[in-house]
């Protein structure tokens, strides 16, 4: 696998803005409004709710696992659809792009977990409870999966080589042929890598979304996540082990039976016209392509269906691509102005109420929010420093040996897909029985969730150091620290930054589950922004919940803009091997 592809896999420092523009402020206001609306809905949710019983018998696990995977799959399908539509809209017109890209950019730095109470309660207010909780879980997983996929698809559409696009026009492809012959194949590799990442992220939130208490309202859905938490509550170690094993098994099976074969298959959509010396392999894919039955099924189910679709859609009117910088008609100007005006009016109207809600939060609570933000920031930094400390030496070791890298990389990939939240019950048990401080546990949980991205990128960065440079360093007898300082660290820098950006976002998000735990009648928490959000949720204190959530959104967006983006740009300009 080449370095370039990996870069696109884990690149989260996407658009290049390194400050907050007026558009961002508007978007933040829009999000604040949405949060407020959700909270309003949430506070009107019905009070007493029946709770689904979670069976701790390991025999039900396959059934639970199926439900969880079903939820994930539903959210994933939704994500793919959304990505295609949104990506198209953003790539097709300059003016849509100007609005849609900043929105995407802010949305993907939003800590999704803090939205959970708002989403769940908001939906229970308007839908029957069972449906509402199910939809809430899917929506939540969707919001954790969708942004990077959308960005990847958009990016692919924008980077399609000009001559390929022109060929499509000259040969009169309509929208369907463009999509099927050109855009989808071209986007497929990026979309697949991002799908893999999205599933890993989705598991994390699924664990949290399946069981959930707000004030006296208790929501649960049968699934692996709720099983694990219930097991922890019942102090049933055997059940926890069974649950974790099931989860690992699902992750491994999906990796081996779905993602790996797909990875092998999409290689044919590579644009590079040279062969890869080290293409990915999959035993399952080889098995399938050698099987007559599979080929027959493929012919019957896939090829024929695609042909039928081709016949229907292939005749549609030819799509005439608009020139991107065509001047707008005055009606378009007017429509756009009107839309903006309406948006601003809505935001203003709700904003006034929102401000009222925020003002109702006592000043002392804002003091706690400020202190919590600092405390959580310190925990995030600690977790990342620990992650750097162990992943760099190990990653460089693995990355320096192609043989080792080939063996270990799939393992690292799987490890990265196992959600840290699955281990949360174990950690809670450790706190209860051994008196481990929650401070340590919180950092540990953040670490579990984020270190893999860093390790992955360090390995990629090391194996991307050109051989000439290694040889030259050998000739100049660069050894020990000098070798690290002159060769390894500068080469790693861009990769490390890419990994850290993903890790940082993940760690902030994890704080919501990591800093607060309920066990039996007892509540364990530490000072932290995440703890505040969880506490407000548990108590049903919507003012505090809104204030803390908005704080986290703003903090994370600002850290991304003012810190990571700048470092990323420096890395791109100065340390990228080209």
């Amino acid at each position, binding site marked *: 696998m080449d370095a370039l592809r990996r870069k696109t896999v884990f690149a989260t420092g996407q658009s290049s803005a390194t400050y907050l523009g007026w558009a961002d402020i508007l978007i933040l206001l829009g999000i604040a409004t949405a949060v407020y609306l959700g909270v309003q809905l949430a506070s009107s949710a019905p009070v007493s709710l029946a709770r689904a019983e979670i069976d701790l018998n390991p025999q039900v696990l396959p059934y639970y696992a199926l439900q969880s995977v079903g939820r994930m799959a539903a959210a994933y399908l939704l994500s793919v659809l959304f990505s295609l539509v949104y990506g198209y809209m953003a790539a097709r017109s300059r003016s849509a792009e100007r609005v849609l890209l900043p929105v995407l950019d802010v949305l993907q730095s939003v800590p999704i977990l803090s939205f959970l109470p708002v989403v769940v309660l908001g939906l229970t207010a308007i839908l029957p409870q069972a449906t509402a909780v199910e939809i809430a879980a899917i929506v939540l997983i969707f919001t954790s999966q969708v942004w990077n996929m959308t960005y990847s698809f958009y990016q692919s559409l924008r980077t399609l*080589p000009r*001559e*390929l696009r*022109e*060929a499509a*026009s*000259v*040969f*009169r*492809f*309509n929208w369907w*042929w463009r999509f099927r*012959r*050109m855009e989808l*194949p071209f986007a497929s590799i990026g979309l697949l890598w991002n799908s893999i990442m999205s599933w890993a992220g989705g598991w994390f939130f699924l664990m949290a979304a399946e069981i959930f208490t707000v004030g006296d309202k208790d929501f649960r859905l049968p699934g692996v996540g709720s099983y694990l938490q219930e097991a922890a509550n019942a102090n049933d170690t055997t059940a926890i082990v069974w649950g974790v094993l099931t989860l690992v098994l699902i992750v491994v099976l999906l990796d081996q039976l779905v993602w790996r074969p797909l990875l092998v298959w999409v290689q*044919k*959509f*590579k*644009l*590079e*016209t*040279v*062969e890869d010396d080290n293409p990915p392999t999959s035993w399952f894919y080889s098995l399938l392509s050698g099987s007559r039955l599979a080929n027959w099924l493929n012919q019957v189910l896939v090829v024929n269906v695609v042909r039928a679709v*081709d016949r229907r859609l*292939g*005749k549609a009117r*030819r799509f*005439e691509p608009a*020139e991107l*910088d065509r*001047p707008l008609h005055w009606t378009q100007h007017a429509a756009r102005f009107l839309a903006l005006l309406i948006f601003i009016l809505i935001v203003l109207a709700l904003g006034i109420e929102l401000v009222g809600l925020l003002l109702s939060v006592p000043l002392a609570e804002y003091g706690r929010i400020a202190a919590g933000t600092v405390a959580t920031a310190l925990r995030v930094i600690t977790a990342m420093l620990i992650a750097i400390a162990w992943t760099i030496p190990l990653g460089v070791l693995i990355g320096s040996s192609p043989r080792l890298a080939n063996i270990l990389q799939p393992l690292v990939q799987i490890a990265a897909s196992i959600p840290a939240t699955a281990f949360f019950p174990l950690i809670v048990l450790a706190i209860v029985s051994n008196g481990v401080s929650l401070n340590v546990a919180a950092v540990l949980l953040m670490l579990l969730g984020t270190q893999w991205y860093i390790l992955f990128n360090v390995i990629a960065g090391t194996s991307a150091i050109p051989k000439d440079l290694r040889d030259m360093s050998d000739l100049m*007898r660069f050894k020990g620290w000098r070798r690290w300082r002159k060769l390894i660290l500068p080469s790693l820098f861009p990769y490390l930054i890419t990994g850290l950006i993903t890790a940082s976002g993940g760690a902030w998000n994890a704080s919501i589950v990591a800093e607060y735990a309920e066990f039996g009648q007892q509540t364990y928490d530490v000072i932290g922004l995440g703890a505040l959000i969880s506490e407000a949720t548990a108590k049903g204190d919507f003012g505090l919940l809104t204030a803390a959530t908005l704080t986290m959104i703003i903090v994370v967006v600002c850290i991304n803009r003012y810190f990571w983006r700048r470092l990323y740009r420096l890395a791109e300009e*100065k340390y990228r091997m080209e």
Partner: protein
Amino acid sequence: MALATHGHGHKPLGQTLVDLRKVGKHYGRGDKYTEALRGINLTIREGEFIALLGPSGCGKSTLLRIIAGLIGATEGEVLYRGQPLRGVNPNTTIVFQSFALYPWLTVQENVEAALEPLGIARLERTKRALRLLDHVGLDGFEMAYPRELSGGMRQKVGFARAMAVEPELLCLDEPFSALDVLSAESLRGELMELWLSGTIPTKAILMVSHNIEEAVFMADRLIIMDKNPGHIVAEIQNTLPHPRRRKEKAFLTMVDQIYAQMVGKTRTEAEELGSAPGEPGLTRALPEAPISAISGLVERVNEELTNKIDVYRLADEFVNDYDEILPIIEAAEVIGFANVEAGDLSLTPLGQAFAEGSIQARKEIFAARLRRVPMIRWILSMLKAQPDQRLSWDVFIAALSREFPAEIAERQLDTAVDWARYAELFSYDNSDNALFIEVEQPIAQAIAQPNGAPNDH
């Protein structure tokens, strides 16, 4: 493949296909306004093979895309068979420089993909694709993917795909320039055979080329363009009989004549230099040529006893595409090292002194001349006006963007820095993204205060 002995093989001219009337194209508004083409009048008739030649940036590819309907003109009329053209022209196809094959489709699927949107039934599609692939000699490669083929074979797929839709007008956008010399030559011969023998229904061919010999070898009419903004400067009829032989005197004369037309004649110093950005008058863009190429050129010409060389020979010796040699010649003219007249390049006394000088002497000669170049003079005066003689790259880009499109502004400043660094006039600091004037530092002092760590063990 040998060329068909098709007599003197000129096709009789038929009806007018394309008629361009005062066509112009501009982009953007206000500060970002750039004019790509102005006042283009051109007709293409059945039976014609036309080549478009001109320096890069003269808009020949834009013109080709306007005729194919990929881009709309902003001024004038584009008529096809007497009707105004709207949207993509259904009677044309393009063969692209980069082939533009879909790498995820096999050779056969690539050709069929062009037929699918026409609503041709599957069996007929396959039949037609196979026939065309056979035609261009790709029999047996139908199931291969483009990445398994050599460049020449990939372009054959490009031709087969274009011919599959049976266009009246075949547009070729530098179709041979991404190929190795031998593949290009054989493909040219094969195309000429298909064209002259009339085995393809194509009525006319329009080719953008970077290679004068190629154009003279193939085309009946050569349109020569120049830039700022793109316009037609000359049309040359080529009545040499087919098959044309490159070493024949008439052939060489025509190539030489076109080179002379394209390199023009060195003008007076004031005209060559133009004015600085922000000043009245036309800002002269620096020719984008690296220092090493300029000194290489001067040294090569200095080897001649007469200090004079035919531009055509120079191009023939070093590069195939005139696009690479023109900016270097232009740079030598601007700096005052060489004069061009009637297709001959001769060194000035200064150029000779430069060619024979030591490294230090060369730098001094170059620096002295560079101070006269308005763009460099302008940068120097801006820097000197600063207390620390340092100014951000972006400031210069902002100023240059008023004169040039953004990407050209970047390249202009790159060239200026390349030249000025060599002449030690000013330099660029990567750490703070700024241009600065270097303070004189004697070598002894530089050694005494090394920047890097000493080589300890």
